[in-house]
């Protein structure tokens, strides 16, 4: 339990650093460390597969792309667009709504749920694979179609349209 509290403290600390640091590249690096602490959390929960996939996909691929874009952008204080007060106000309200939703969601979760305790090895690759391809086959396949849709959409957006002449 002490390990959990220590890692949880680190997660929150680095998450706050991600928000408060001024340099965008530092911000991405703190986010990478935050994801790493999530990996440690998954290992503590005996969810090996989720841990290593979080490591590969979030830390190894998505954050590299974030860093990639930031390096090309050359963000300085001069070029930083100032957000209007209206946007800031809306952001604060949206954040509060998210917080309220999370609090409500966590309140109804029963931590001593029998389902979780009966399958404590569910996070190992073998068990997870069996469950995904038998009990949850339909949601699994539908989510793969969702990902395919997103991919096709991204390709479509990135593809150059032939320029249409006006007048």
């Amino acid at each position, binding site marked *: 339990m002490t390990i959990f509290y220590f890692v949880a403290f680190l997660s929150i600390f680095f998450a706050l650093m991600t928000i408060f640091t001024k340099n965008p590249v530092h911000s991405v690096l703190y986010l990478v460390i935050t994801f790493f602490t999530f990996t440690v959390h998954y290992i503590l929960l005996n969810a090996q*597969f989720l841990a290593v996939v979080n*490591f590969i996909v979030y830390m*190894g691929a998505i954050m590299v*792309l974030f*860093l*990639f874009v930031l*390096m090309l952008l050359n963000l300085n204080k001069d070029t930083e667009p100032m957000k209007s007060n209206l946007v800031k106000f809306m952001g604060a309200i949206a954040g509060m709504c998210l917080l309220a939703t999370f609090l409500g969601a966590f309140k109804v979760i029963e931590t001593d749920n029998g389902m979780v305790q009966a399958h404590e090895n569910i996070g*190992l*690759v073998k068990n997870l694979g069996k469950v995904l391809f038998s009990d949850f086959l339909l949601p699994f396949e539908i989510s793969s179609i969702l990902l395919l849709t997103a991919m096709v959409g991204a390709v479509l957006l990135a593809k150059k349209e032939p320029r249409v002449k006006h007048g």
Partner: protein
Amino acid sequence: MDTAFIIEKLILVVIVFVITLVIAMYSTLAERKIAGFMQDRHGPDRAGLFGILQPLCDGGKFFFKEEIIPAGAHKSLFILGPTLAIITACISSAVIPWGQTLTIGDRSILLQVADVNIGVLYIFGVIALGVYGIMLGGWASNNKFSLMGAIRAASQSISYEIAMGLSIIALLMVTQTLSIGEIVAQQSGFVNWNIWAQPLGFLIFMTCAFAECNRVPFDLPECETELVGGYHTEYSSMKLGLYMFSEYINMFVSSSLMAALYFGGYNFPFMYDLGLSENWITIIGTLVFFLKIFGFIFFFMWIRWTLPRFRYDQLMNLGWKMLIPLAIANIVLTGIITIVKDTYFN
């Protein structure tokens, strides 16, 4: 977990670490010797017998050179870059099985640091992390050539990781486990080597390993004809040394991975027919494993002095339009063969 177990693992870690560093050191010498051999000249032969002390001299030179951090560089990230590169290179060897169990007295010692049951995925995680070292170093240098080298490294590594993962999936369909220790144990003898079941998968994996190690013909991140020195243009002294060293360690680790996943690891033909005791089989097996690794390292160097570098668009076309479709076809083919085998030949 008793103390003896911890001490045993600690000794194993230190041995693996030292062997990795020594092999990386002597790879630099071997590279120059092989280059000399291929270009019909001697190569370094002044320091010691046949130039055997050359890596030590190079290391000493790196340590004693002046350390320069450019004025416009981002200091902490400039130091973090090579540090990350060498750390990620060193930790990936933790899940590679160097041999079977060795029995000393009544203790049996497994010659593998950590037999985790997601070993293959662990390797992928570490490879994915490896690109941060190059990217941070390149960006922190505040030099456009370094930045271009870093960006090339990142996009190359991400592109080839996909094909590498897909080629591994076909292998996992055959072996049905993610533990590298178990994958190697399955390949006992000679006919059970995975290369016979997955020849196409091996070729894809090897090509991607070349690209992930930034070796010729995929060394676009440090392409000196276009980018001065690529991502490490601004680096000097041991920080440059660490980047070069991590490249050689990566080469060693990917060679051992290829030998373990596809060429039977510590298994050799007729290993149980010679009437040797268990310990001797383990020791010979480990030696054979290193022999296979050296073979792959030689192959890496052979390619370096044979093929010219790709152009960048050729590199991307090869990765996305050739290797990925080929790897997917390999997965489908493996699936069909497995089903046909199960239904008609059982």
